[in-house]
């Protein structure tokens, strides 16, 4: 136990430091990219060149947001502010960034969670009953490849057109209730399920070739039990790693999906805030995504150990 703790503490500190570095890099890259692209947030705040702001209003806005200071000073203040845990005030939303995150993160997290869950469900249903079963395996494998190749936004438009516009089975827009979550979830989950299933199928096939499977069968275990209790466990590990990547990819793809389905969420907010060069809001959302990604990594590590107890020795 003490031995384990000895190893866990430096590992935890290392992870923490790594996480902080990732956050610092994300904040700095956001700052740099928004300052390197042309455009002036004040024009966006005050409505652009064809609005009618007075020179005093422009000067006041510049001063209020500190945009009249030298860029290095702006950067230093920005990092110092984030280090204090203050995400600042959004220029374009007239709200504290933290309030925007509080309102917009839950719908996006709900969409991500449901997409990941549905993707896993679809992958399991596609792989476990069909692996190494001739024609069924070939058909399922082909469907997985097609699924993995579908662009989310295209699938979203297709589902919207078919299930919402033509057949009127599901609401086309909004956040109201569970039915509104179905189409966005399917748009994100089907391609992801294709990816997960491909990886799962490969490891599943490999596992089925292992000697312990033969042993299990020799003990008289039925095919279903062999698949679920022995082969599946081996096939899950690479899929867990893939899911960590998927958490990041889901946020990116949520931008298009939230716009298509007029859903609340961070993706749409990110799109709008980049367009208005709203630095505090963009960096707040980017940091939130980075944090989600880091936490997904930690969760994956924990899951590894749960799935494969052998890892306890090497990875506490």
């Amino acid at each position: 136990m003490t031995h384990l703790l000895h190893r866990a503490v430096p590992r935890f500190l290392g992870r923490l430091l790594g996480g902080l570095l990732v956050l610092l890099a994300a904040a700095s890259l956001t700052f740099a990219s928004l300052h390197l692209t042309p455009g002036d947030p004040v024009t966006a705040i005050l409505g652009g060149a064809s609005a009618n702001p007075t020179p005093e209003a422009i000067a006041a806005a510049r001063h209020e947001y500190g945009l009249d200071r030298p860029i290095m000073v702006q950067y230093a203040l920005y990092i110092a502010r984030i280090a204090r845990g203050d995400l600042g005030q959004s220029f374009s939303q007239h709200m504290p960034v933290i309030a925007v995150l509080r309102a917009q993160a839950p719908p996006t997290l709900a969409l991500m969670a449901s997409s990941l869950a549905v993707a896993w469900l679809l992958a399991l249903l596609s792989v476990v009953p069909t692996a190494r079963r001739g024609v069924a395996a070939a058909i399922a494998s082909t469907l997985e490849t097609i699924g993995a190749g579908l662009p989310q936004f295209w699938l979203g438009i297709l589902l919207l057109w078919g299930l919402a516009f033509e057949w009127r089975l599901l609401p086309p827009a909004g956040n109201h209730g569970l039915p509104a979550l179905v189409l966005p979830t399917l748009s994100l989950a089907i391609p992801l399920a294709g990816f997960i299933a491909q990886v799962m199928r490969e490891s599943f096939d490999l596992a089925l070739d292992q000697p312990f499977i033969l042993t299990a069968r020799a003990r008289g275990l039925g095919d279903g039990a062999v698949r679920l209790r022995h082969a599946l466990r081996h096939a899950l590990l690479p899929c867990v790693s893939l899911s960590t990547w998927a958490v990041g990819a889901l946020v990116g793809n949520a931008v298009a999906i939230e716009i298509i389905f007029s859903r609340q969420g961070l993706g749409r907010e990110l799109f709008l805030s980049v367009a208005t060069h709203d630095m505090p809001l963009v960096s707040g959302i980017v940091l939130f995504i980075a944090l989600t990604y880091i936490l997904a990594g930690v969760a994956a590590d924990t899951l590894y150990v749960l799935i494969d107890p052998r890892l306890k020795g090497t990875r506490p």
Partner: protein
Amino acid sequence: MELTILRGAQALGSLSMRPLPFPALPRRALWLGAAALLLATTGCRRHQSRTTAHEPVQGGTLIYATDREPICLDPHVQGDMPQVFLAEQYLDSLVAMDRSGHILPWLATAWTVSDDGRTYTFHLRHDVTFTDGTPLTAEAVRANLDHMADPHTQSSTAGGYIKQYAGTDIIDTYTAAVHLRTPYAAFLEVLAQGFLGIESPRALARPRDENCQNPVGSGPFRIIRWDHQSQIVLARNPAYHWGPPTALHTGPARLDGIEWRIIPEASVRFAALQAGEVDVIDSLPPEAETPAQRNPDLWLLMADRPGNPTNGTLNIKRVPFDDIRVREAFIRSADIDGALASVFFHHYRRAGGPLSPTTPFYSPAFEHHADYDPDRARALLDQAGWTGRTAEGIRTRDGRPLVVHIPLKASLSAAERTLWEQVQATARATGFDVRLENGDDTTILEREGHWDYDVRIGYWNTNTADVLRIVFSSAFLGAAGVGGHHQNEAGFSDPAFDRIVNDALLTTDPDKRRALYLQAQTIAAQNFLQITTYPQSTRLALSRAVHDVRLEPSLNVTSLYDSWVTR
């Protein structure tokens, strides 16, 4: 004012309306579709009236779906169209404007204008309270005008319209004397706009960003909740008995409340209406207009907005449009009528002159002053020395090709984009190399600030012919001075024109103003400063269960004060 916030993935929207190829879906998608069928059981609202009521019905909630979310619910801050649509439901104004452009009493029962035109004395109603209990007094008028004029408010529209504001004196509890630095005959007209609506002074005293979230007015509804990116919830103000003179009834609103939903995607918004998920949608997309007309469950309500119509303004500060002959040639080489017919399915009319037909003092004389005439365009280019030709048929002068740069903002609607592609095609036939240059909004705004364009696409919604001063007079060439902001996008500078539009502010005599604005329209048209395309418009599609939705005349924004639903 100009549209600045993004309209979402417009391009995707138009795509989704086309019949897409429907390949065989993966098998599991099909059974999921079946599962979805089970889920989609409730929630569908019917369009048809359950009763055949012809008398207004009290109660019920109306669901209104719009394309863009206001960035701040207080219309004094910034001041974009989505804000004034919402403001109409919860704010009242000092004065109202009717369809013929007359100014009528509202919160102010009467007013006098001093002989020098610089002091407006307003006599207020005594019986108005804001929904936070604060009474309407002269103090409230002062607080509101001060708030609009305060640079910290970040007001682009209201603040810009009262640049002449000097201060307000309180004569007594219900009498306020508003002082202007210079005479401003359009003052009452702009006061009728919802952008200059009167808010509770107690609510205004809070920090700006707090007031943005839940501003307080004296209107027929009050704001209950704002779920960002989703909806704004309003409830009836039961005390309301000071409705505008243009309304259809008196007393409190008939609806219990409004759910103001944000659905950016045009085709999704229309589908939500067809499915009965919402009762009214605005910004009906052009491709949905014919289906909406044919749908027996729906009706349409449309009106053109006043102001400077949608246009491409020609930058006359550089080659080639520094030459009036090339400007006329370009305008005459663009087949706008043909483009409108194909892009908007014959639903939009051409606006040919510098003012939209619904603007006070509009003259129809300029509707055809620069119609499509490619032969004349070619003759003008010959006269202007653009006589050479490249291998592709582009005109040249001294070896330089005739290139026209048109920056297109990412937020530009798909329809507007297609319209300019058609202009590109027809102008090319005359020898113009029109380059449509895409960019994100802030990049394009920066280019515009530096006069780096030949054509600038925009419009200006306002209920006064004074818009001519804003878009063409030399005072607005670099008015704001910072970041290159200018509202006079043409770069036009003419002392005679300046004198006319400034003189028009000195008199409140309608005949004199009409004569002056006719001269101003003549000069603007004769100088070929803009390709005007179509008037900005409010386009609603409504369920048959919805009655008495009215368009408020000053900017033709939706008013749900009189509305009722039968369901």
